[in-house]
């Protein structure tokens, strides 16, 4: 995309996310059409904006559906893996155990993927046939649900590329985590410049400055990794392991940012009256969707020990 188009799209998405019903507004905006034509670079814009604004949408379902070559839309949910996991929500026709975004409670149909010895098959199941239990949990505004159900008897399903869908979702979530991290850093930075102690703004104290610098380093590292993983996914020439690395870096980075910013914001950052807590809840929850920093890192290490090879070098 040209820079001017990117900017216009980002501005448009930002306005859409300010609407009271962002999912409806996104659909009217034509976000799915933009995703279909421009690919993950549009997802990158949307998820960075929604992370920064702290807005919950169910656009993740559309990203996954598109990567599974399914039409998506408000009436189609995609069942996510169990928390902290990347494996398909069903294995070889075994009972379905997974998570849903807020869409699963509203949509007519859910796409469910099963792993049959490394080959993945998808079926569309009426949501009425699944047990969806809303989760309040750490981040009630996100509207997640647990999903249980039976794989429909006799259904083979269509072959789909589940690793590609996981990678697309991980990249989207990485951008959302980065967006939320940037807002946390802005909140802490602005506070540090106006909060005065010992006759100077606390931003003058090196201990505070270095915490905030550490946040920016974590954010820019995650940003560079997410951009590289996105480019790789779009060009199709790279393994999906890059998306997992980007997601892990964004999740770990967001935890680092949350910790430092909460410390810099101190008392006010510990209250439910300040905006920070919403972002802390959000990033800790998002970290566990489609694999967490912890599980993705262990899985990567085990994979590397199996193959005895590093992921391919990033070419210049």
């Amino acid at each position, binding site marked *: 995309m040209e820079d001017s188009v990117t900017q216009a799209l980002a501005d448009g998405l930002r306005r859409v996310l300010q609407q009271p019903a962002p999912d409806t507004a996104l659909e009217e905006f034509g976000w799915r059409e933009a995703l279909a034509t421009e690919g993950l670079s549009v997802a990158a814009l949307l998820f960075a904006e929604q992370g920064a604004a702290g807005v919950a949408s169910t656009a993740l379902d559309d990203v996954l559906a598109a990567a599974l070559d399914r039409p998506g839309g408000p009436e189609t949910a995609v069942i996510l893996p169990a928390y902290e996991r990347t494996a398909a929500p069903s294995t070889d026709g075994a009972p379905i155990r997974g998570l849903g975004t807020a869409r699963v409670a509203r949509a007519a149909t859910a796409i469910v993927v099963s792993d049959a010895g490394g080959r993945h098959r998808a079926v569309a199941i009426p949501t009425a046939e699944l047990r969806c239990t809303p989760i309040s949990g750490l981040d009630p505004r996100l509207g997640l649900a647990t999903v249980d159900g039976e794989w429909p008897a006799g259904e083979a399903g269509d072959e789909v590329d589940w690793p590609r869908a996981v990678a697309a979702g991980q990249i989207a979530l990485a951008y959302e985590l980065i967006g939320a991290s940037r807002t946390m850093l802005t909140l802490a930075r602005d506070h540090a410049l106006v909060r005065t102690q010992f006759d100077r703004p606390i931003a003058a104290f090196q201990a505070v400055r*270095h915490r905030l610098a550490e946040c920016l380093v974590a954010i820019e590292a995650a940003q560079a990794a997410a951009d590289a993983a996105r480019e790789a996914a779009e060009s199709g020439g790279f393994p999906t392991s890059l998306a997992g690395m980007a997601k892990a*870096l964004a999740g770990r980075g967001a935890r680092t940012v949350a910790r430092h910013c909460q410390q810099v914001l101190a008392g006010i950052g510990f209250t439910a009256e300040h905006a920070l807590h919403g972002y802390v809840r959000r990033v800790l929850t998002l970290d566990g969707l489609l694999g967490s920093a912890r599980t993705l890192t262990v899985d990567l290490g085990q994979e*590397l*020990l199996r193959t005895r090879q590093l*992921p391919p070098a990033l070419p210049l």
Partner: protein
Amino acid sequence: MDLDQFRAGLDAWLDEHEAELAPPAGADVTFDEEMAHLSKVKRLTYDAGWMRWGWPERVGGLGGSTLMRAYLGEALTVRDLVEPGIYSMTEVLAPTVITFARPELAAEMVPRLLRGDETWCQGFSEPGTGSNLASLSCRARLDGDVWRVTGQKVWTSLAQYAHRCVLLTRTGPPESGSRGITALFVDMDSPGITVRPIRAIHGRDEFCEVFFDDVVVPVDRTLGEVNGGWAVAMDLLPYERSTALWHRGAFLRRRLTDLLATESPDPAALGSVVQQLFAFHARSRGTQHRMARGETLGPETSIDKVLLATTEQAVFDLVADTVADRVVLGDDPTSARWRREFLYSRAATIYGGTAEVQRNIIARRLLDLGADR
């Protein structure tokens, strides 16, 4: 020549000449031998043209994108043909000399550095001047058409081998700070220069003390403006954090590959280090492309440096945990190399601006947090 052509051509050439370019092996290889080998690699790659791509034609280069320089160092490092720390001094010093030296001087000198005929060093730090570079006191006094330099530098890498030095001197009053500094291009065989190598923790004479006792430097060896040395230093420092760091990242990848070939690190620790290295590469790649587009590099490269330093220490912490017995007890060449590199990795948060100074720059220049006092 574009990057893809360069990559294909260089890879084929390196395949063909690998034996000729191979470094001396064994536990008893001296620094002298390593430096002689580096000169040989530079000469061979220069004569074959590879070392000249990405440098301006007016200094003996063949023009083209600076990405070719980044790839050359990467390819030589990944094949273990050069040690990136000593190889990349060219990337740190030559760009600034090209920008600030008289055109004739740059045209005469830079090819010698590229070809491996000469080694250059960087005379910035002093006993009383580390992170606070603007406080330096090595004095240069104008005497007719020459400078007379008296003072001391320290932590000067490769000074014992160097033919030239990019030297920062105090030419204004002592309290003139960053406004009273002048950069000079000094011949290291000038009378009055004494070099004393310093043995470092990893067993190498990594850097030196350099003493200047009324050393005469022709005034046409001034780099940039008189009392404009701060601009020279500020131009140079981002180069320390661009191509040179890309080469260092290639080195870390190489050594992690070596570790993984024979050892079994803790999976979580291994995964974390590989992720960090990926993030560094992704970040540094962006910097290489910005440089290739001709953008001015600035304080944002401090993020690259923090990431490199953190990653380098994470790689060698992993090594120290995985092959602790070799690092501590091993006397064979492989163990000695792990030990030396582990010890050297402790310097990553010190050289080229400490981790603390990088964070100060990030806080002041990138986060705009205002003054720190």
